């Protein structure tokens, strides 16, 4: 008898009504995360139909996308990008009050990017199904949860029924063998993986990352990897929970406490793919071959080692991408002049990401003419970073230390780059115009972003970390 994959174990325990040829499965959702951008139309729908929320206790809301990252004005007002952004935030506050949803709003000490605070609060747990109207919900797969992004119609479905209509996706194992070299981060690894399997390599699949190099990652690093599953087209990416997971979660507010904790851990230990389990597709990646990796085009699959030559365009889309980016075939990205550096986003805004950037920058200055924004992922990350003095490392270097939010990752809150500017960004998408109309995005790790800010051009962080590498 063949065994089950981790994904199948989580899926099977959440089936309310099994799928048939004619109808998809009714799948139960354990945790529904909510933010201001993709929820208002769903709340309106419920209101129009006179429907209540089925399980408000399984919802958790925050403000992150449209929120300014500059502090309050002298009069206490928030510097919103425009009246519509403010109205959207106010709308979520009203909706949460009216429907009884826990909101981590402006007055919460836990507010932050939805995919940062879910795990921080211990709301994200192994074996759960987790959804949010946000494609980077895949982040929570780092805990062995089946977590994926949904549209606003489905947000309404979950609000009213706590369920979704789903067809069972295919499975793909990504075995990452060996060990990441010194100075190479989880971001380099996931960019390398997407560059290998392609921007649509995961379409129709749920990924499972496994192997020695994955087991060696911290939880922050695992979140970085799972976060970008969607950039390979996969709605979800999972990693089996282990001692690293349990140690990270223990004591967090929403986790089981006391004897219930031990019971939960015993259950979670079974959340591993069985030896005989089979996947629809398997890919092998050699971690030891990963170098500092960056993107050179306009989707995350156009990723290469920063010292490798940019490949020549093979079709019209690649021509357009290279032209937009002003990337030169045959030349490496390393050394390309930089205008803006952004450290933040649900991919790379956790404490260890900020430490990684600060280790490169300590005692050094951002190059003349380069603007650098550092935006912590949550109020908790901000507090911890300030306790360690990381904010001073950044501000002393000439970078801006901001209030938590999505900021320049999606550039809908006023934090953006100007047309033509090149941004080295720790975020997840380098689409045309993603960080401002005409802005050019190069995705990179926090260390590479920091090194590039110092050098004024795309730079190898290992040159700044000699004492670490030695």
């Amino acid at each position, binding site marked *: 008898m063949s065994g089950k994959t981790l994904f199948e174990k989580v899926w099977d325990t959440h089936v*309310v009504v099994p799928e048939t040829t004619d109808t998809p499965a009714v799948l139960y959702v354990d945790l529904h995360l909510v933010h201001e951008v993709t929820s208002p*139309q769903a709340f309106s729908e419920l209101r129009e139909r006179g429907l209540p929320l089925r399980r408000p206790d399984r919802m958790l809301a925050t403000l992150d996308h449209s929120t300014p990252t500059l502090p309050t004005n002298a009069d206490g007002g928030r510097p919103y990008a425009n009246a519509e952004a403010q109205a959207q935030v106010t709308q979520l506050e009203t909706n949460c009050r009216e429907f009884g949803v826990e909101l981590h709003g402006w007055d919460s000490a836990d507010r932050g990017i939805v995919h940062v605070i879910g795990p921080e609060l211990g709301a994200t747990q192994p074996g759960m199904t987790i959804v949010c109207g946000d494609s980077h919900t895949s982040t929570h797969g780092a805990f062995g949860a089946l977590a994926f992004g949904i*549209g606003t*119609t*489905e947000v309404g479905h979950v609000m009213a*029924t706590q369920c979704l209509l789903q067809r069972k996706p295919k499975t793909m194992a990504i075995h990452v063998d060996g060990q990441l070299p010194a100075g190479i981060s989880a971001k380099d690894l996931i960019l390398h993986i997407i560059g290998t399997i392609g921007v649509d390599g995961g379409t129709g699949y749920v990924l499972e990352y496994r192997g020695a190099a994955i087991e060696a990652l911290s939880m922050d690093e695992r979140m970085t990897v799972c976060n970008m599953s969607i950039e390979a087209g996969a709605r979800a990416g999972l990693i089996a929970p282990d001692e690293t997971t349990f140690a990270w979660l223990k004591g967090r507010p929403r986790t089981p406490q006391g004897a219930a904790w031990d019971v939960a851990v015993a259950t979670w230990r079974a959340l591993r793919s069985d030896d005989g389990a089979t996947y629809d597709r398997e890919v092998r990646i050699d971690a030891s071959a990963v170098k500092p990796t960056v993107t050179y085009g306009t989707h995350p699959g156009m990723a290469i080692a920063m010292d490798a030559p940019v490949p020549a365009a093979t079709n019209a889309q690649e021509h357009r991408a290279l032209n937009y980016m002003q990337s030169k075939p045959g030349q490496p990205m390393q050394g390309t002049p930089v205008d803006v550096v952004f450290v933040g986003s649900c991919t790379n805004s956790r404490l260890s990401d900020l430490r990684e950037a600060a280790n490169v920058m300590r005692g050094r200055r951002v190059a003349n003419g380069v603007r650098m924004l550092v935006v912590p992922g949550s109020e908790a990350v901000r507090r911890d970073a300030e306790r360690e003095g990381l904010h001073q490392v950044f501000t002393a270097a000439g970078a801006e230390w901001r209030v938590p939010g999505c900021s320049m990752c999606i550039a809908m809150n006023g934090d953006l780059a100007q047309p033509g500017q090149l941004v080295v960004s720790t975020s997840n*998408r380098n*689409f045309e115009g993603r960080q401002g109309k005409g802005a050019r995005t190069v995705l990179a790790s926090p260390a590479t972003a920091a090194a590039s800010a110092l050098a004024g051009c795309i730079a190898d962080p290992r040159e700044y970390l000699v004492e670490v590498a030695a």
Partner: protein
Amino acid sequence: MKPITRIHSRTAVLSDENIDTDRIIPARFLTTTTREGLGKLCFHDWRYQTDGSDNPAFPLNQPQAQGCSIVIAGRNFGCGSSREHAPWALLDYGVQAVLCSEIADIFRGNALKNGLLAIVIDELEHRWLLKHPGIELVIDVREQFIALPDGGRIPFRLEPFARHCLLNGVDQLGYLLQHSDAITHYEQQEKAA
């Protein structure tokens, strides 16, 4: 949702691969709290020049593309975010169907729930359609084929439930609510475990 059985239109071609949701509707327009009126923002930064006038290089601005409600798009259309604003914007702009050899998962699901036919076709036929803009097609949802002007047919396959909902204008939330008892039973078992 109104039932959709067939769509009859000439085609317009957006041959770029990997047209992402930020290109379909840039994130800065997502501060809206309604579904309506997004058509004017569809493909905004591609469709308009900096002075706000139409960009003549944008394929759907060209005279022969006017009135076309079927778009043949390059592979992996709709990749990127889960924003349902993308299908809302396309529908409001007048696009009723997107044909492609591969469509991103979340976008495809969102599109079908709103009555935008996101249809995957074989690579060979996809390549042919990309090279022949402006031809008249009839998309038959019930029989799952696309009729060509010469009488030829391109078969496609929709997920059966999505097809059923399109043909009958089924409200999926209403369908889910019919399973309330099963959901309650699941929750009781979960509590007991």
